[in-house]
């Protein structure tokens, strides 16, 4: 059939099709995601304070101040440490637990439910439980004292421990998510590949390294990106458990700093600049992580 004889696909029915199915989602996305981002960026270029002097355009001044603000830089450091903990710990432990739970039977099904339960619990509930556990006279220190430890650490009150305690709490809550994603990945590994490798003399470690682990690449991508985003925008745990302390900013994440600056100190222009910087960092970190991890998936 000659090129000229091909019938052209009509444009308008395709457009109607797109509008019918795409418009609702796009409308919601534009109204509730894109528009607030654009408005926030606009605020970040002003000295906006709903209770203060008249709003005026200040250009990039807020961004310049941010780069010299020790509190903001400290919150970036705190957020980075928390993110590293939350990306690494639930991934490593989640994979180990998923391998153990990748069996049939009611007992393993029950264990999967147990591990997933913290994910669906309210953050406030989780936080209050851990406050009770980690307080100086909480259950953990009572147990340590019972074991003869004279001066157990102040898990939430000592600046040297508080951030890592928060990391443990976040990891505990996110662990179940990683377990479930890795379990789904494990169940997609063909059994015949494992059997063929076993016949060829490959041991369990070798089979895991050369078959299971490479085939879990998509699960690793999902877990890493989700943990990265979750950790970077942590606010509620900090608000309930430590309120950014003990002391000044020892556990204050960027998200916590944004809320404090915007809604306690009322400096909403400056807080908007923080939020935009946070958005850019999350976007870049996720893009880099996706690029690296998806390249690994393609190589399979």
């Amino acid at each position, binding site marked *: 059939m000659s090129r000229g004889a091909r019938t052209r696909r009509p444009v308008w029915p395709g457009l109607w099709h797109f509008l*019918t199915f795409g418009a609702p989602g796009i409308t919601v996305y534009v109204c509730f995601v894109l528009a607030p981002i654009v408005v926030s960026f606009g605020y970040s270029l002003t000295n906006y304070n709903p*209770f203060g002097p008249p709003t005026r355009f200040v250009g990039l001044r807020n961004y310049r101040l941010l780069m010299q603000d020790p509190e903001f830089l400290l919150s970036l450091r705190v957020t980075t440490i928390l993110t590293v903990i939350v990306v690494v710990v639930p991934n490593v432990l989640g994979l180990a637990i998923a391998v153990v739970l990748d069996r049939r039977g009611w007992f393993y099904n029950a264990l999967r439910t147990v591990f997933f339960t913290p994910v669906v619990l309210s953050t406030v509930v989780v936080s209050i439980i851990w406050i009770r556990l980690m307080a*100086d006279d909480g259950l953990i220190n009572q147990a340590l004292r019972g074991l003869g430890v004279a001066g157990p650490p102040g898990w939430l*009150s000592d*600046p040297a421990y508080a951030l890592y305690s928060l990391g443990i709490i976040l990891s505990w809550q996110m662990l179940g998510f990683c377990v479930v994603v890795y379990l789904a990945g494990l169940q997609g590994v063909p059994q015949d590949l494992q059997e063929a490798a076993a016949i060829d003399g490959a041991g369990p470690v070798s089979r895991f390294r050369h078959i299971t682990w490479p085939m879990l690449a998509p699960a690793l991508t999902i877990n890493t990106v989700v943990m990265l985003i979750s950790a970077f925008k942590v606010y509620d745990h900090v608000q309930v458990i430590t309120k950014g302390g*003990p002391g*000044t900013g020892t556990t204050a994440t960027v998200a916590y700093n944004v809320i404090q600056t915007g809604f306690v100190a009322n400096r909403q222009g400056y807080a908007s600049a923080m939020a935009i910087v946070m958005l850019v960092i999350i976007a870049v970190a996720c893009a880099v992580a996706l690029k690296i991890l998806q390249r690994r998936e393609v190589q399979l």
Partner: protein
Amino acid sequence: MRRRPGAWTSTLSAALCLALGAAALGAGGCSVKDGSGGASGSGSKEITFLVFETPNLTPQVWDANIRRVTSKHPDIKVKKLVAPTQDRTAYAKQLLTSGQFPDVMVAVSPAGFAESGNLYAWQPGELKDFTNPGNGAVGGKIYQLPANTQTIPVVYYNKSLFTKAGVTAPPRTYAEFLDACAKLKGKGITPLVVGGGHDALGPTWAGILGTEVYAKNPRWMHDRRADKVKFTDPAFVSGARKLADLAAKGYIDKRDLSRDYAATQQAFMDGKGAMYAMGNWFAAAADNPETKPTFEIGQFFWPSDDGKLVVPAFTGGGLLVSAKAKNLDAAKKFALGFQLDKTNLDTSTANDGLFPAIKGYTPPANAGPVFKTGYDLYQQGVRANAVVPAFGFEAGDDGMPAGVVEKWDSAAQDLVTGRRTPEQVARFLDGEWAKGS
């Protein structure tokens, strides 16, 4: 396949309706309860009233207080809004920015709301019944009814633990106070019970700064606003050093910073420490038959170096009225009626341990012993002209700019944990003041 004409438009319309519906639901997320006690009708004037609930200030207490006023003014119908947490000021900000600013609010900090023209400025004639009509002014005007006085802190002490440690009388000078702390610590008793938040550690620091800063210059905060003094000045640094020294000597246990306000109070009630620097509202729990401790409680004000009496106190904390209330006259009438009702005032003494700052008011004869002792101590302070502002608990022109109090709180924790030196804390606070003003 041909599409039914108009199908995509109806889908789009439905999606838009859903989106708008979701937005409306989100905006209407506050808790609204009718607390009018039944006053309604075509001639009634409706007002909204923002309150907060605590174990002492229960829904029943608020409803009864509201009903007492509406029964005197049947033309007023009240819709009670309940703040979702005790931070009613933050909630009021949310309501303002979402166009739902309440007509009347209780114990919301006026800072910010007043300057932006959102609050009604009370006229002198309307304040004639208040004992301190000028307290808490913002720009020279009163936006919050100066309804009650709180002494912050009173040092409550466990008499049996004092006896056990051989401390025979409450300390009158700071040297005696340190001596008592040393004796208590020597017996394995934690001298001071503290926690981590504003209400749990703040009163201790307010006590120190009352004697170190305000006793020497009661207008210190005004002078700070005018840039005549700094946090780095010797008086403030000396106060910061005292707090750091108490922690360094083990008289304050830095691990106690993990406690919240409720746990801190409970720790003192459970006898886990000998002294508890707290606002006089603690009397409500200490006198409550269901919560009062088994030991006897004594009280003294934070001792100064030379033993001169210093009584840090804050008068304010009352109702505020929105300048843009639809029924402004009804809102004003309700606020004044609520604040001056004798039964409501008695309720506030019993449930919140407050000292009503209303002319001619006397506490009820059946008030608890801890309340009565605290009230008498405060009256002694008034007679001795020893009352100074309560550092960190002031409001309006007497207080710090928005956001700085939270830094003052975290700086106190830095001193207790030893993370910052007194000089570093002072420099930090001057920096935060510059950002906030």
